[in-house]
């Protein structure tokens, strides 16, 4: 009886997940239409606007971009919970993922006045058996957080190392850090630390949860060291023959 119940609830779960995926796709279409029209408004495609109008439309556009990233997060979470999406294993070069993520992140870091650097600590980083797309999401989330929670003039450094058996990734920032008493909940779904909320009121609380689950699904381990107001280092280790 108990077994049967478990099965039923799993089935309902699966339906809810594909519902979430469908919903986030639909959200994305609408948000895209809004993004395009807001950009066109500010670019004067529908006539000139006053400075005040431009300013407010610009702010709506920023909020809309935020919604797009939230919808993406929901999509990633639902994919992760749906077994058939993780993991599509192939030979993956993590350095390629890092350099493309560096490329994406460089702009936001520069804009903010945060120095972003990459250091490879060993000559050869072995290829991994991993789901490239998922791993990209895990890495991108860590880059996004490091930049988001590091003030202007700060520093974010990414390290990559390997002993031949594992590949070790670390991203160190000089940001706001995690309050001591909240460290235990940092990887919980929807959790956001008080100082993170204060600095940036809007966020999903899903990024770290997603990253940790992706690394876990690959047989890896993820953790962090942090000191409030000093900075954080998030790291993960993935087995080469995972």
């Amino acid at each position, binding site marked *: 009886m108990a077994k049967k119940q478990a099965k039923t609830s799993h089935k309902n779960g699966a339906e809810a997940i594909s519902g979430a995926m469908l919903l986030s*796709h639909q959200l*994305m*279409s609408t*948000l*895209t*239409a809004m*993004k*395009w*029209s807001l*950009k*066109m408004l500010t*670019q004067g*495609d529908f006539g000139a606007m006053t400075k005040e109008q431009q300013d407010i439309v610009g702010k709506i556009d920023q909020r809309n971009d935020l919604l*797009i990233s939230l919808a*993406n997060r929901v999509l990633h979470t639902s994919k992760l919970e749906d077994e058939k999406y993780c993991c*599509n294993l192939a030979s993956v070069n993590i350095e390629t993922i890092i350099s493309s993520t560096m490329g994406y992140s460089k702009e936001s870091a520069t804009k903010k006045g945060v120095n972003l650097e990459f250091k490879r600590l060993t000559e050869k980083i072995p290829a991994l058996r991993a789901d*490239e*797309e998922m791993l990209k999401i895990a890495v991108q989330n860590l880059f996004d957080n490091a930049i988001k929670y590091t003030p202007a003039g700060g520093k974010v450094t990414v390290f990559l190392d390997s002993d031949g058996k594992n590949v070790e990734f670390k991203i160190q920032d000089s940001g706001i850090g995690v309050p001591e008493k909240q460290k235990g909940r940092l990887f919980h779904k929807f959790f956001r630390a008080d100082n993170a909320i204060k600095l940036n009121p809007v966020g999903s609380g899903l990024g770290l949860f997603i990253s940790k689950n992706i690394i876990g699904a690959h047989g890896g381990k993820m953790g962090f060291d942090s000191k409030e107001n000093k900075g954080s280092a998030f790291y993960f280790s993935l087995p080469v023959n995972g």
Partner: protein
Amino acid sequence: MAKNILIVEDDAFLIELLSKKFASEGFKVSEAMNGKEGLEKIKETKPDLVLLDLLLPDVNGLDVDGFKVLSGIKEDPATSSIPVIILSNLGQQEEIERGLKLGAIDYLIKSQFTSDEIIKKVKKILP
């Protein structure tokens, strides 16, 4: 001579925005709101470039999605040289690879681009 762009897209609002943007840049724009209509228009009018959405409505149970439109264009020697840019919110690696393998010249994820960035891409392909 103005270049002809065909937009195959089921969202009327996105078509409206793209049409306006392309027209203001001197392009001639036509549109198709499902895959079947898209393929017919491509064969009939031979546009200079196609902007193609992937998730398209199923008309009369024919289920001609963007991938089918793309293979239809590339299989016919009369249309195979027409450049196709996929414009979709499907961003899975598999879908991107499949689209490029079928012969799309580029794959743009809608929510990551704006209409003027799309114009820039098109201008690079159609100088």
